[in-house]
């Protein structure tokens, strides 16, 4: 199985949450709520426990998003292989490691290949053409398109930003998932209209969990708020996919990747 298959049924919705936030059992319900809401793949911010993933009951593909130190240090090792092996055992399908640029990713890429897992990389607005080429050679699963730098500064229109970012990936035979502070169904729709194969949403969901902690809301209430938000975002993504002005940068054949 490849992560790319999560993008096969139309524009994919990829939410992110931190495993264990605010605690183990609430977090299990929250991640399952993302699944109920229709997530196609879930990026799990993983501190270190694989039991969590084993206990999860979800249909969506699971992607582990974590710091490289946790990956390379697992089991007191000095390389990523044991972590990847264990991740494969519990059914994780791929990784995004934000502090691991492609230049340093050799050992993790090798371990992922050995156990049949994907390794997604982030492409930023500042990524140079040379590095874009390197990333293209080593990425698998999907490419995470960070369409804008900070959350501050001039806010260009979301579809224009997405369009610019995707133009640079023209011809890449791998699904392109776009994320940069997307928080509403309407924004998700515009991102897909601009050519994204998937929409990644993190902070809007982490905020819902955060509000739950502040207001001491019961887990079930927060779960249903999360599922509701996911439905809204997923519906937006789907609407973007079916609308007519979708440009030719859009869907690619995911079976062709890597």
């Amino acid at each position, binding site marked *: 199985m490849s992560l790319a298959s999560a993008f096969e049924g139309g524009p994919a919705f990829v939410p992110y949450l931190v495993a264990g936030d605010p605690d183990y059992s609430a977090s299990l319900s929250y991640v399952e709520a993302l699944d109920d809401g229709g997530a196609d793949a879930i990026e799990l911010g993983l501190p270190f426990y694989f039991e969590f993933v084993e206990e999860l009951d979800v249909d969506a593909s699971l992607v582990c998003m974590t710091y490289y130190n946790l990956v390379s240090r*697992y089991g007191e090792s000095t390389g990523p292989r044991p972590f990847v092996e264990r991740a494969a055992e519990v059914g994780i399908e791929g990784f995004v490691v934000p*502090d691991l640029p492609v230049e340093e990713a050799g050992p993790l890429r090798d371990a992922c290949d050995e156990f049949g897992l994907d390794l997604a990389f982030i492409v930023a607005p500042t990524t140079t053409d040379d590095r874009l080429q390197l990333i293209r050679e080593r990425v698998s699963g999907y490419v995470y398109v960070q369409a804008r730098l900070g959350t501050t500064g001039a806010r260009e229109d979301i579809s224009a930003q997405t369009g610019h970012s995707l133009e640079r990936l023209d011809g890449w035979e791998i699904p392109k998932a776009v994320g940069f502070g997307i928080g509403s169904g309407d924004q998700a729709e515009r991102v897909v209209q601009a050519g994204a194969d998937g929409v990644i949403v993190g902070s809007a969901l982490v905020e819902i969990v955060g509000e739950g902690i502040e207001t001491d809301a019961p887990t079930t209430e927060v779960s249903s708020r999360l599922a509701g938000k996911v439905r809204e975002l997923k519906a937006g993504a789907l609407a973007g996919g079916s609308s007519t002005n979708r440009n030719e940068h859009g869907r690619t054949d995911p079976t062709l990747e890597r």
Partner: protein
Amino acid sequence: MSTSKYGEYGGQYVPEALMPAIEELTDAYERYVLDNEDGFIDEFRRRMREFGGRPTPLQYADQLSERYGFDVYLKREDLLHGGAHKLNNALGQVLLAKYMGKDRIIAETGAGQHGTATAMAAAHLDMPCEIYMGETDVARQRPNVFRMRLNGADVTPVTAGRGTLKEAISETMRDWAGSVEETHYVIGSVVGPHPFPAMVRDFQALISEEARDQIRDRIGRVPDSVVACAGGGSNTMGAFQHFRDDEVDLYAVEAGGSSLTLDEEEGVAPNSASLSTGTDGVLHGARTKVLQDSDGQICESHSVSAGLDYAGVGPELAHLVEEGRVRAVTVDDTATLEAFHRLSREEGIIPALESAHALAFLDRAASGDADLGDEVVVNLSGRGDKDIETVLEETDRRDLSVAPDMSLFEELGGGSL
């Protein structure tokens, strides 16, 4: 070309958005710092003389020498403008940012020494400046916070985690990831992704460049050993750099805190001794020795001195220790406080608590723990005015042989000065 790896250590473990900035900085480092393009190094040296007060003296310490039975020379970085070695690096980097055409400076700070040095350098070179500082450190280093504000810098407290240097670095990296195009991040030690460890070392190498000439003028040869404290390791690398090819023993003194044993359960290291007790990991952009638990979670470090309170260390220093070129040793909080009082009382110099670690090691060596030889250079990395409140509190809690009589303060109500 500059190398980004030191044996197993170093590298560039940074978010994708920062990679171009790191490449741009590497290019600038090679052109301006290594090749003196546009006279960068000439201007750096001139400003370090005129604004910084270099060269700093190398002083023979009469009482310590007599006490220990070997000659002790103090490299007086405490007399550098700002009161610590930090200005060497801060001024170098702010000037480099200018040459690179950046128009905003950000920096993290622990003790506040790097923050104050950066704020001074930014004011001197007319650049806007924002300093991130853990809220715990803001509370324990208030005078330094005020100094930064006086120099026109914005100080942003960081509330994450335990509110110390580790969180401040992470927050500054986050800012940089969103502002790289116009902003330069002035990192405070020989840590972080390449080219920072090499570049900061080169700016700090003024210390050993001078000290080597000064000691040879004085005794006609190089010393038998050089001793420096190590947090991130910038004063350390700076004090060692020009002695690396000599037959000189190099000692990096780490903060032993209250114990060298890591509390796995709580994820707390009651020390900051990453060279001596740490394991290989990736922290803040580099592979190096870090204080971490068996799952790879970074531990909270501890030291009586805020400037050493850090769970990592510079990758090149980690490599030099691994190779056996540098010896890593530790002294605990109590020995440090005693050394602080001893230098204050016997030599008339109030040292920074960080530097007091290096001094405390002299005492250990004299009692047989190490053979430093006959001629010893100690890097006195900073002055201790910033630490007076901490020392007052910590001395009060302990039974120290060399401390002044504290009863006057108790009558006055104790606590804060």
